[in-house]
C-alpha cells in the first residue's frame, strides 16, 4: 500500500468514526445554547471553542459530518445506481441509437453548471437536505455513465466476451456477469472522487442556505455563520473550513491510492 492510500484511509476513517460516534455521544448537545460562554477560543472544556450562541463547535462538527456523509453517500448512490446501468447499456449497444440517446442526454446534463441547477432545484422545491441530495445526485449520473461506458467498451473487445456470446448469453447478462466485475475497480475509484465532490457541493449549498436547514448542523452553514465574526472569532471559520479541506483531501488521496492499488497491471508486477 502506498503512503497516499494510508493517509487517505486514515483521514477518511476519522471522519466516518466522528460521524458514527455522534449518534451515541458528543461532548455537549450540539444544539444547546449557553450564551455566557459564547465565542470561546479552543480550551480544555470546549476543545474547539464555542460559537456566537455558546454552542460547542466540536459537537456541531461531529453531527455535521453526519450530514455531509449522508448527503454525499446518497448522491453517489444515485449516480452509481442510475449511471452505471445506463453506461453498461450504452456500451452494449455501441454505435446504436440507444447509445446515442444515452450519451447525448449525458452531454446535455454536463452542459449545465451543476451548482446553478442545484440552486434551481432547491429554489423550486424548497431548501432541504433531501433536495440537495437529489440535485447533487443528478449530476453524478452522467459521470458514472461515461466512465462505465468508456471502460466497458474496451472490455467488450476482449475474447472472453466473444466466448460468452458464443455461449448464447445476451448482452444484459454479459454486461452484469462479465463487464461489471471488470470495470468495478474504475468505478470504486470514481466513487471516492465523486464522494469528495459531493461533500464539497453539500458544503457549498449549505453555505448559501440551500442545504440542510437549522437546527441540523452542516459544515457549510457553520462557515456561513462564521463569516461575519471572522475578525473576532477566527476559530469559528477555521474549524469547519479545515474539516472540509482534510476530508476532501483524504478522500482524494484514498481515490488516487485505490487507483494505483487496484490497477491490474501493477497487481501483476506485485505478484
Amino acid at each position, binding site marked *: 500500500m502506498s503512503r497516499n492510500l494510508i493517509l487517505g484511509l486514515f483521514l477518511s476513517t476519522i471522519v466516518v468514526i466522528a460521524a458514527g460516534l455522534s449518534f451515541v455521544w458528543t461532548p455537549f448537545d450540539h444544539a444547546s445554547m449557553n450564551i455566557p460562554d459564547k465565542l470561546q477560543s479552543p480550551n480544555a472544556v470546549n476543545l474547539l471553542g464555542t460559537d456566537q450562541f455558546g454552542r460547542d463547535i466540536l459537537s456541531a462538527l461531529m453531527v455535521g459530518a453526519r450530514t455531509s456523509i449522508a448527503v454525499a453517500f446518497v448522491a453517489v448512490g444515485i449516480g452509481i445506481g442510475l449511471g452505471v446501468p445506463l453506461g453498461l447499456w450504452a456500451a452494449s449497444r455501441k454505435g446504436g441509437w440507444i447509445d446515442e440517446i444515452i450519451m447525448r442526454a449525458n452531454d446535455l446534463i454536463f452542459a449545465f453548471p451543476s451548482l446553478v441547477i442545484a440552486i434551481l432545484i432547491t429554489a423550486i422545491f424548497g431548501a432541504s437536505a433531501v433536495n440537495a441530495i437529489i440535485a447533487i445526485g443528478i449530476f453524478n449520473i452522467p459521470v458514472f455513465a461515461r466512465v462505465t461506458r468508456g471502460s466497458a467498451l474496451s472490455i467488450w473487445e*476482449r*475474447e*472472453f466476451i*466473444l*466466448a*460468452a456470446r*458464443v455461449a448464447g*448469453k*445476451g448482452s444484459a447478462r454479459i454486461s452484469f456477469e*462479465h463487464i461489471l466485475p471488470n470495470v468495478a475497480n474504475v468505478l470504486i475509484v470514481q466513487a471516492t472522487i465523486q464522494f469528495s465532490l459531493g461533500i464539497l457541493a453539500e458544503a457549498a449549498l449549505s453555505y448559501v442556505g440551500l442545504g440542510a436547514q437549522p437546527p441540523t448542523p452542516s459544515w457549510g452553514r457553520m462557515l456561513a455563520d462564521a463569516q461575519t465574526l471572522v475578525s473576532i472569532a477566527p476559530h469559528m471559520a477555521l474549524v469547519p473550513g479545515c474539516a472540509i479541506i482534510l476530508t476532501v483531501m483524504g478522500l482524494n488521496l484514498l481515490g488516487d491510492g485505490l487507483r494505483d492499488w487496484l490497477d491490474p497491471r501493477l497487481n501483476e508486477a506485485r505478484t
Partner: protein
Amino acid sequence: MTLLSTRGLNVSIGRKSVLKNVSFDIEPGEIVAVTGESGSGKSMTALSVMDLLPEGAQTVGEILLNGADLRKQSEAQMCETRGQSIGMVFQEPMTALNPVKTIGDQVSETIYLHRPGVDAEAVTARTLSRVGLPPDRFPLTRYPHELSGGQRQRVVIAMAIACGPRLLIADEPTTALDVTTQAQILDLLKRLTHEDGMGLLMITHDLAVVADMADRILVMRDGEIVEHGETQDLLRNMQHPYTKMLFHASMHQAKLPTIDPETDTETPLLSVNQACRDYRLPRSSLFARAKQFRAVDDVSFDIKRGERVGLVGESGCGKSTLTRAILGLEKVQSGQIQLDGAPVFAGRRPNLAVRRKMQVVFQDPYGSFNPRHRVERLICEPFHLLSDAPTGNKRDELIAETLEAVGLSPEDAQKYPHQFSGGQRQRIAIARALIIRPELVIFDEAVSALDVSVRARILDLIAGLCRAYDLTYLFISHDLNVVRSITDRVMVMAAGKIVESGPTAQVFDNPYHLYTKSLVAASPMLPALES
C-alpha cells in the same frame, strides 16, 4: 576482429536470475540467431547488449563492442553508441513508429542526432531506397498509417541502419508479419548485412526462419545457452536434448485418426452459401456516399460430419469476419450460413438450438477468460445454452471428466486462470468448447500464440480428442505447417474469396492458384533432419 563479444554475462532482476553465464561472439558480416521458447532470455540478451534492461536489473560480465567494454560506458556514451554503432529492429512495427511523425522525420532524427553536419535528407532518402521504399514512390512525407505492416517494418529497419551501425539487433522482426511479407523482410535483412558487413544478432522463436537465415545459432533455455554452433553443423548434429526437442516439436505432425466410415458424410453439417459481408468505410467527404468494403466475398463451402477442415490466409483476408459470421455473431449481407439445416444468425436473440451445436477456441490464451472467475465457472459457461444443464453432482462429474479429457486434473476447477501457463489455458479453452459436446468446433488461430513444444502437445490433444469424440472442426490459421498436420481438407482465402480448396497434402504439395503458390513458397520450412 570480433565485433561483439559477451563474456560471462549474468543478469538478475530481483532475486530471479534471467541470464546465466551467457558468452558469445559475433563477427562482422555474420548473422547469429538466438532462439528458444518464451522466457528463455533471448530478448534479455538483446536488451542487455543495448543496456536497455528494465529497472532494477543487475548485470555482471563483459560486453565488448570492437574491443571496448560497453558496461564501463556512461549513459551519455551509451546514448551515442545506440543508434550510431548498434541499431535495433523491434517486433511490432506499428508501435515502434511514432504515429504523428512522417517516416522521413523519423529516419532523419537518428541522423541529426548522431551525424551532425551531413545532409540528413539525402541520407534519409538513400536509406529508405535501400530498404525498398524509394522516395519517388514513397515520399518522405508519408505517415506510418499510410503504409502496410511490411512497409512499416522497412521504415523501422531504415531507422536502425541510417547511421551505418556495426551491429544490428533484430528482436522477432517478422513475428507480427504475414508469411509473404516475412520472406521479403528476411531477404532485406540478409542483403543489408552482407552489403554493409554488419553483424546481425537476430532473436526469433521460429526455427524455420533461423535455419534459413543464420550463420550461427545459439539455443537458449532458462537464461542459459544450451547449444551453439554453425547452422548446418548444428542442424545435422544436434547434441542437447532440448535442441532436439525444439526441432522435433516444430516439425511435429499430429496423428489424425481416419474418419469413422459409419458417420453420415452425405448431408453437410455446416453449409455456407454465397456469403457476403460488407463493412461501411468512413465517408471521404461530408456529402460523399460512404463506400463499402467487402470483407467476405461470395464464399461457399460445406463441412460434412467428421471432417477436419483448415482455413488459411494472411491477415486482412477475411478469415476472422467469416468466423464471426459462422458463429452467428454477425449478420451476412447476402447468402446463407446454415448449421444442420438451420440458419446460424437469428437476430438479436441468439438461437440457442443452433448455438449449442457449435463452439469456438480463440487464439489468445490470456484474453479469452474472465480473469475474475474460477475455471469451474469458466468452462461451464456454455451450459447457458442447454435447457437441462446438469446440476450438483452430475455437473461436478462432467467438469472433472472434461478437465481430465484435456489433460488437466479435476482439482484445477477451483483455480483462477492466471494460475495457469499459456498452454494450460488453451487446454481450459478446449475444455470449455467441448463440455457441451458440440457437433462443430472452430479453432480460431488456437495454437498461434503458443511455444512450439506446447503447440505440439495441444495438436496431439486435438488429434486425441478427434479419436475420443469424433470431432468435426474448422481450423483457422496462418501457419501452413500446423494446418498440414491437423486437417484433412484445406481452403485458402485471399481478399475475401476462397481461391483454392482440396485435400490438405494435395493443395500444399501441388498448389494451382498463384496465391497459394506464393504462400507455400514463402513459408519458411525446416530442412529435413535425420532422426
